[in-house]
């Protein structure tokens, strides 16, 4: 001891002796030994000093576990501080010395009977922290007593202890009935006990997703609401989070809960505020929108959210991530609060970026001038990432608010004039998007853009510039020179730029054929002969063949009108958004991912959905009669021809192929047969819009809606040539076709038996029939006619039975169908009434065609369009079906469906459940959006279909089932 004191005086100035830092100074050898001696000293004071030293060593991560028996010996004391210190030590080291820890049990059990509630609580609290199985057995009896203790302080501590024990040994907790006791505590008279019971139950429930632990009913809700007003701020958070899981019975209950929760919005603790916002956002869904209270509530939500933004930056960040969700769900709440999201120059970067995002979401015609002025200001800041994002934001504003486009363009031009390299490049990328959204409107700026050609060194900016030059080649006098200058270093460019350059030069050639022949030949040979990139080569070949076979068709394809890009980018999927709204204030809301996707140990968390509205307000959203009747009234589209196929094929995305697995070389693909290659394989390989840079994909534009029929033959001929394959139109492709069934039995048709099926081949619907003559005489003069039907199906040509049909002879006929016939809604929808005539008589029969025959090849929606459409279609139009006993994994299912023109747009995996988002277009232009959930190991799939014409859902579902099971 003397030695230690001397050392102390040597090492440190005397003045600091009174502080705890002295405990850090004993780092010499033999330290443990010294401490041991001190711990066993008779003097209380020495003991306490020694324990303090031990604790200090422990906190800085030194191993002092060797002192375990000596420290435990100090536990039997009436000095509360010493006792607490020993407890601290025990909690840390009991795990590594379980046998020794047993020594402490007796003291714990004794302390649990102490007359001082503080000691009782401390004992039960510490025991729960000792994560040793042997100790937990001894803990049960004291814990049971403490849960029923007369003192609420002890009860509330014991409640938490149940959660601790559950963490160590869940079975034990259940067997001992502690869960029931805990549930009883929800009705405790003391609000603090209630809050802790709720917190403990919530934590236990997290690892038991299906247990009905927090069985919320109106009575318990009432108790929770009462406790809410009186418990601590932390307790309020637990209670509010628990309330958010409740689904009120009706809008009146919902309103009364909202009324009682609203005062929490004025709490000083931001976590309380945000949890209250969550409850209100969720329960608001149930209130009718025409209710006065609904409007009042909306108004009350804005100020607390704004106040969160004046808190510390870390709090601001979490608040902003949540506000991002809230403005997507209910933009009206914060629409007048734009200014609070303006960026201060000394905000941390993570706050700046979030604010920017919300500014764009809130941008509208009313505030766009202010927003643009701000964004322009930000574009001159120091931080490069932030500047880039600000420039992008200007582009997003232009696309979002049409009236502002002109102003945005001029702002971008101003920025280009600054000549700051990264600003210019960013600006060019967004101007390209603006051109896509408003074609032929702002071309006057092209000259300015061209001036900056040389300074572009980023692939995205170069590709954007090349796209602009190609797209507007006819207005740029020296377009050929500009593109030629890029061509010099062709092989050093990134794939993105190469592909774009190829397309741009072909466009240029089609616009100015006379002067640019040499250029186009040069680029085609560069792409096809000198490149190792299969995408580039394939695109090159296609252009080449297209140009050499039929320049007119090439023009139609390459210079086709492009679909406009969607308005709102990076919106969260509506189902996910709904789920996230239920998780406001949690980690899920910070990451914008469902909680199950990333938090460990919460497997099988139930997905939360917003409750539906009970009121009349929703009626505005219901489908209007016109669109509901769309099935019959929609104008029938032209027969999708091979032009579509080709268009699809050309709808290449500029992002490098990210499809799983290496892209097969063209030679191996050929064995599949030309049509298959075009219909399924290539399409999914090249057209897969996985990268999400949808806007760029436009370089090529999507397929023309329908190609004039006259082009079909040469184009397809050319393609066949190209691949040097004789694959005929009749070759079967991936589309599902049901087996033939007997449509007309011989008995009913004087000996003529017709069995048949439908198939879709190369974009043409085929009615395939086997005609069998079971009569005694020869049959001739066959003809066929359809009654009016739901989708306007009609024979595209006469029934080709050229030779007379002898008795007992069968003949296979394939009848191409068009969808331009007269339309009448049938019941069931896919019913087709057919009349067949021969030399004997006219026979009538009806058959049903699978609706998948009507799925056209260009039924792939852009991701963003899909999102927006899904959101747009009211929930009433959603129907859900189960497909049982299907043993495909999601990829196989996706491939299978793709063969039948059901296109998978996105895939999301949530806790082993794959969600496929798919789109399908019918021949008459009706879109059907689907969400297919596939759980690994579960043969039952769930399909949710959304469609503006909900009548078709049932048929589509049947097709899904048929397609997947065959």
């Amino acid at each position: 001891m003397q030695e230690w004191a001397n050392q102390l005086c040597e090492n440190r100035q005397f003045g600091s002796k009174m502080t705890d830092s002295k405990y850090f100074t004993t780092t010499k050898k033999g330290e443990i030994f010294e401490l041991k001696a001190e711990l066993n000293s008779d003097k209380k004071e020495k003991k306490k000093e020694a324990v303090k030293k031990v604790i200090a060593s422990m906190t800085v991560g030194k191993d002092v576990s060797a002192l375990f028996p000596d420290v435990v010996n100090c536990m039997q004391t009436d000095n509360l501080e010493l006792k607490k210190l020993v407890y601290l030590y025990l909690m840390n080291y009991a795990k590594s010395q379980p046998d020794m820890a047993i020594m402490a049990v007796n003291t714990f059990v004794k302390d649990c009977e102490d007359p001082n509630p503080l000691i009782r609580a401390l004992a039960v609290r510490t025991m729960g922290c000792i994560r040793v199985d042997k100790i937990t057995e001894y803990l049960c009896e004291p814990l049971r007593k403490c849960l029923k203790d007369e003192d609420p302080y002890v009860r509330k501590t014991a409640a938490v202890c149940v959660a601790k024990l559950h963490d160590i040994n869940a079975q034990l907790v259940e067997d001992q009935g502690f869960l029931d006791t805990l549930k009883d505590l929800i009705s405790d008279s003391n609000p603090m006990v209630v809050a802790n019971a709720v917190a403990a139950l919530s934590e236990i429930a997290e690892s038991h997703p299906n247990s009905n632990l927090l069985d919320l009913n109106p009575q318990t809700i009432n108790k929770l609401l009462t406790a809410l007003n009186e418990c601590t701020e932390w307790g309020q958070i637990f209670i509010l989070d628990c309330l958010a899981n409740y689904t009120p019975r009706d809008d009146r209950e919902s309103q009364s809960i909202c009324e009682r929760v609203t005062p929490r919005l004025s709490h000083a603790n931001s976590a309380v505020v945000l949890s209250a916002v969550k409850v209100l956002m969720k329960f608001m869904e149930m209130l009718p929108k025409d209710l006065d209270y609904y409007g009042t509530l909306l108004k009350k939500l804005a100020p607390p959210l704004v106040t969160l933004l004046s808190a510390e930056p870390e709090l601001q960040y979490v608040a902003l991530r949540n506000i991002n969700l809230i403005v997507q769900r209910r933009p009206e709440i914060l629409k007048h609060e734009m200014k609070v999201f303006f960026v201060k120059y000394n905000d941390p970067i993570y706050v700046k970026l979030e604010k920017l995002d919300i500014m764009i979401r809130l941008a509208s015609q009313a505030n766009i001038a202010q927003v643009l002025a701000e964004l322009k200001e930000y574009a001159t800041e120091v931080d490069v990432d932030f500047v880039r994002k600000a420039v992008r934001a200007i582009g997003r504003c232009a696309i979002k608010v049409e009236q502002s486009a002109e102003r945005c363009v001029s702002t971008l031009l101003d920025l280009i004039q600054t000549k700051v390299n990264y600003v210019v490049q960013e600006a060019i990328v967004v101007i390209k998007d603006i051109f896509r959204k408003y074609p032929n409107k702002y071309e006057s700026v092209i000259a300015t853009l061209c001036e900056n050609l040389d300074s572009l060194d980023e692939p995205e900016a170069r590709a954007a510039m090349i796209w602009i030059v190609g797209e507007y080649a006819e207005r740029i006098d020296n377009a050929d020179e500009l593109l030629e200058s890029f061509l010099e270093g062709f092989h050093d460019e990134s794939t993105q730029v190469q592909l774009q350059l190829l397309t741009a030069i072909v466009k240029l050639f089609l616009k100015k054929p006379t002067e640019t022949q040499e250029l186009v030949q040069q680029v085609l040979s560069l792409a096809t002969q000198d490149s190792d990139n299969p995408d580039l080569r394939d695109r090159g070949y296609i252009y080449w063949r297209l140009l050499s076979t039929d320049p007119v068709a090439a023009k139609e394809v390459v210079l086709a009108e492009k679909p406009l890009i969607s308005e709102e980018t990076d919106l969260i999927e509506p189902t996910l958004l709904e789920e996230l709204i239920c998780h406001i204030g949690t980690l899920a809301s910070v990451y914008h991912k469902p909680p199950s996707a990333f938090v460990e140990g919460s497997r099988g968390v139930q997905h939360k959905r917003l409750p539906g509205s009970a009121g009349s307000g929703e009626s505005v959203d219901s489908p209007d009669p016109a669109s509901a009747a769309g099935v019959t009234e929609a104008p029938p589209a032209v027969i999708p021809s091979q032009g579509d196929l080709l268009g699809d094929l050309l709808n290449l995305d500029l992002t490098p192929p990210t499809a799983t697995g290496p892209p097969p070389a063209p030679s191996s693909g050929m064995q599949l047969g030309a049509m298959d290659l075009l219909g399924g394989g290539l399409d999914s390989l090249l057209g897969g819009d996985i990268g999400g840079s949808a806007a760029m994909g436009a370089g090529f534009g999507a397929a023309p809606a329908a190609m004039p029929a006259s082009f079909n033959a040469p184009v397809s001929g050319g393609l066949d040539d190209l691949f040097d394959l004789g694959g005929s139109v009749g070759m079967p492709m991936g589309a599902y076709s049901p087996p033939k069934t007997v449509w007309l039995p011989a008995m009913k048709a004087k000996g003529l038996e017709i069995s048949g099926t439908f198939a879709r081949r190369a974009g043409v619907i085929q009615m395939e029939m086997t005609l069998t003559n079971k009569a005694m005489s020869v049959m001739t003069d066959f003809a066929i006619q359809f009654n009016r039907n739901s989708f306007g199906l009609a024979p595209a040509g006469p029934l080709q039975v050229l030779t007379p049909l002898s008795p007992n002879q069968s003949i296979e006929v394939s009848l191409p169908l068009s969808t331009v016939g007269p339309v009448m809604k049938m019941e069931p929808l896919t019913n087709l009434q057919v009349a067949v005539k021969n030399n004997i008589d006219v026979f009538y029969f009806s058959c049903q065609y699978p609706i998948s025959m009507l799925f056209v090849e260009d039924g792939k929606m852009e991701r963003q369009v899909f999102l927006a459409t899904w959101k747009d279609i009211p929930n009433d139009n959603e129907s859900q079906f189960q497909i049982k006993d299907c043993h495909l994994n999601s990829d196989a299912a996706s491939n299978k469906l793709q063969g039948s023109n059901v296109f998978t747009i996105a895939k999301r995996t949530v806790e082993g459940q794959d969600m496929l988002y798919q789109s399908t277009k019918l021949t008459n232009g009706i879109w059907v959006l689907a969400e297919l959930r596939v759980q690994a190991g579960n043969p039952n799939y769930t399909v949710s279909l959304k469609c503006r014409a909900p009548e078709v859902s049932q048929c589509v579902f049947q097709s899904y089932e048929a397609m997947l099971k065959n």
Partner: protein
Amino acid sequence: MIHSLFLVNASGDIFLEKHWKSVVSRSVCDYFFEAQERATEPENVPPVIPTPHHYLISVLRHRIYFVAVIQSEVPPLFVIEFLHRVVDTFQDYFGVCTEAAIKDNVVVVYELLEEMLDNGFPLATESNILKELIKPPTILRTMVNTITGLTNVGEQLPTGQLSVVPWRRTGVKYTNNEAYFDVVEEIDAIIDKSGSTITAEIQGVIDACVKLTGMPDLTLSFMNPRLLDDVSFHPCVRFKRWEAERILSFIPPDGNFRLLSYHVSSQNLVAIPVYVKHNITFREGSSQGRFDLTLGPKQTMGKAVESVLVSSQLPRGVLNANLNPSQGTYTFDPVTKLLSWDVGKINPQKLPSLKGTMSLQAGASKPDENPTINIQFKIQQMAISGLKVNRLDMYGEKYKPFKGIKYMTKAGKFQVRT
């Protein structure tokens, strides 16, 4: 709930760890260090960092990162609020919250953390209760304890923890009963080049120092309570009374506390007490730039603008500044490019100005960015929103307390763009 806490100093060393459940290896902080390295400025470290098995939620205060480790879904705001509360408590206990202070009081820190969380659930976070459980260290007490062997841990059950007014302990006694309230308003504003206001808002607080015997019940009323439409209250305030009568009615905690904070947003008229005339220009091709700044008061209702401090981050290309202040002193740090000018008080008769030249790197092009000017100031005896306390009454106790109310306006984030 909160699993563990690590305290990390500016140089990236963990100097304290505390675990409330099983021990989490400190190697989990490697993910934090990675993020710290990536961040250009210390304050740019993202507050939520995912790691394969845990989430790290951190706050930065007093140049110390308080890194909480969580494993399951926990409201991040709850964690952040709690961490700030920890810092506040340390500050309350030790006067300052520095690495040295924490190390000097490591055992108290440990006891405090143990008392504040149980199994990750907050247990006692009210300073009143904590102080009853664990006495704050004072030089005197440490001396006395060392000599007499007394402890600094309370033996009694803290009464507040169970009462309906958990924020107040019973049996408070003072010889001088006094209640002071400070109305402090901070103006956050962004002023654009031309001097017009882009955004302006007021963050106001009423901080109280109440030393009253017994269980006093106070009411505070305002002349113009309509100003307060966006308020956050201390839990002691009776919300129903406020909703109905716009009167603050409460049983105060003992000692210092924040009674309420409020927000006056830009929709209401926010007066801007100072204006800046500036001319900061660089000419293309010249290695000189002009710097000209003049400050003046406006809308101050006759009160003096004091403790004015102007700072600005000049463009990176600026090598040095050669300026001439009409009053006060200025410094320019050629490394960080931070210009700061300590102006003092603004005299309306003779406006303070700072004029001169800046030298640029020879041959360098004109800087792209426009410096933003940050202004700090104070105005005594005025709340810029016009908020005024009408009266303060006390019920429940018989004595006459001494009452005082002070007003002050300060600049918050007050920025002028050039």
